[in-house]
């Protein structure tokens, strides 16, 4: 099992901070809180999830209270408040995708990876979960993999197997 101490301190690299500086310029003076969502995406892309120490650092950078970051990170579904696998396979589970077989794809994923929804595989590589509509209904079933959020469309059991095998080899 993958284990990360919740209290493990984090350091933001200068490259990451440079990206922060770039984003904050998009908003009028004093409205730097607007940068919160994009900053959290950058943090998650870097560390794989948004831990409490990382959120505290973001709060400090934006000069806002930590609670203002927590309440946002817990509201939006894209931010992970627990560590996940290196690849999080998110399958659309909403109506139109179910009409064309999304439920079968999720059953297959569970079998193939050997873990339940939300859990992490032994090797720490994979997690999967059902998510709500990904706005690709005409090309379903679909799944996405962060942090780049690459889309895989018109899924079949074979194409899912292929995808997982390819990711394992990476």
């Amino acid at each position: 099992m993958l284990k990360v101490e919740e209290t493990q301190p984090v350091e933001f690299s200068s490259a990451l901070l440079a990206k922060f500086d770039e984003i904050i310029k998009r908003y009028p003076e004093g409205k730097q809180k607007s940068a919160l969502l994009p900053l959290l995406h950058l943090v998650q892309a870097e560390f794989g999830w948004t831990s409490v120490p990382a959120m505290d650092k973001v709060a400090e950078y934006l000069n806002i209270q930590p609670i203002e970051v927590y309440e946002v990170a817990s509201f939006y579904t894209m931010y992970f408040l627990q560590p996940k696998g290196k690849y999080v396979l998110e399958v659309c589970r909403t109506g139109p995708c179910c009409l064309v077989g999304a439920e079968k794809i999720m059953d297959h994923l569970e079998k193939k990876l050997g873990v339940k929804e939300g859990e992490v595989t032994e090797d720490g590589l994979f997690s999967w979960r059902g998510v709500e509509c990904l706005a690709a209904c005409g090309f379903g079933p679909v799944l996405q993999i962060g942090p780049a959020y690459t889309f895989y469309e018109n899924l079949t059991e074979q194409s899912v197997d292929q995808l997982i095998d390819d990711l394992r080899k990476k």
Partner: protein
Amino acid sequence: MARKLLLEHINVPGINTLAVYREKGGYRAVEKALKTLTPEEIVEEVKKSGLRGRGGAGFPTGMKWSFLAKPEGVPRYLVCNADESEPGTFKDRYLMTHIPHALIEGMIVSSFALGANTSYIYVRGEMMPQIRILERAIEEAKAAGLLGKNILGTGYDLELYVQPGGGAYICGEETALLESLEGKRGNPRIKPPFPAIAGLYGCPTVVNNVESIAAVVPIINDGGDEYAKIGIGRSTGTKLISASGNLVKPGVYEIELGLPVEEFIYSDEYCGGIANGKRLKATVAGGSSVPILPANLTLKYANGEPRLMSYESLSEGGFATGTMLGSGGFIAFDEDQCIVRNTWNFSRFYHHESCGQCSPCREGTGWMEKILHKIEHGHGSMEDIDLLWDVQRKIEGNTICPLGDAAAWPVASAIRHFRDEFEWHVKEPMKSQSTNYGLANYANPIEKKEEVKQENL
């Protein structure tokens, strides 16, 4: 062939680049608007075009623009709503992926018309690839002098930024979107004041859907009167329809409003009929929030006249026998689909996406999901169907934002039109777990095409 205003050049290689987009006549609207028109004239053209908001509500865009307050010394904002999350809708993603400059061009013209010097495109966070595409397109436009300071030497300045969301359907509601853009939870605001008076950072703001903004480009190029000639009645122009479900050719289609529904579903130019030779059972014509209709009412009004793809025609008969055009998310269900299961699925969606601010929606969506889960899994009673009706009725109209209505309507319409299927689940709990209710009396009035056998030719 129907006229295409937005997707005309979709298949041209490299149309996502500035060079090819310009070769095909792109950015003419920016030249025309900034150099020859005043902001008021642009608003007038959009009013004349009859363009109605393409995000779902269908409010006239020109009128929305004319409500924008213009106090001295206060910045105004244009925010593009690209938080496309309505189940069944994927047109904006398609447009941004393939022709990003159509949106950028529309943003420049619209921002100029509204007097905005900073504009944002709020894209749902899951669309990171589209965010990168838009950012690249913005860089290209900036390098060509179409964005930034003193655009094309006209003295007009505009900075355009792309903002990612965090994964929340509710942020498609315009005030929730503005909250999110301010770095907060996506809780819709109480209106009034409307964004036109106090929007982003408390300043006057217009929020428009991607497709509405892209449609401003042909309106400026050809004039509002030309645009209004397309379509039917108060449904002017073209509309992107996202077609999904059990269709031969699902995908995004640009139609002239007024196209018969039957032609849209069955003609080879559009969806090509129902997949695998099945028959149509039901449709959701405008995204998951609009009422579901059985096949017979989808294709024809209650009086037998053909139904058209337009705002008025789809809502003909009110909620008793009609539905809505909504965002144009057209979902087709074949004879093997279970309406109860689908309604449960949609209810789960709305329960998951409710922001939790208003009790009727927060609690009601959860109860609807639970009751539907119970019926779908063979544990329901007849009273549950009435309870379900009762719960949805208490949500509708009792919430700050339309998510409550959007959660209630699919449940109400499913019971209204498919009550016998719900009752069958209650009466035949075992059978309903292994088989489907089937087409029943919602018969698709269109006969299955008989295959022409080779030997008979």
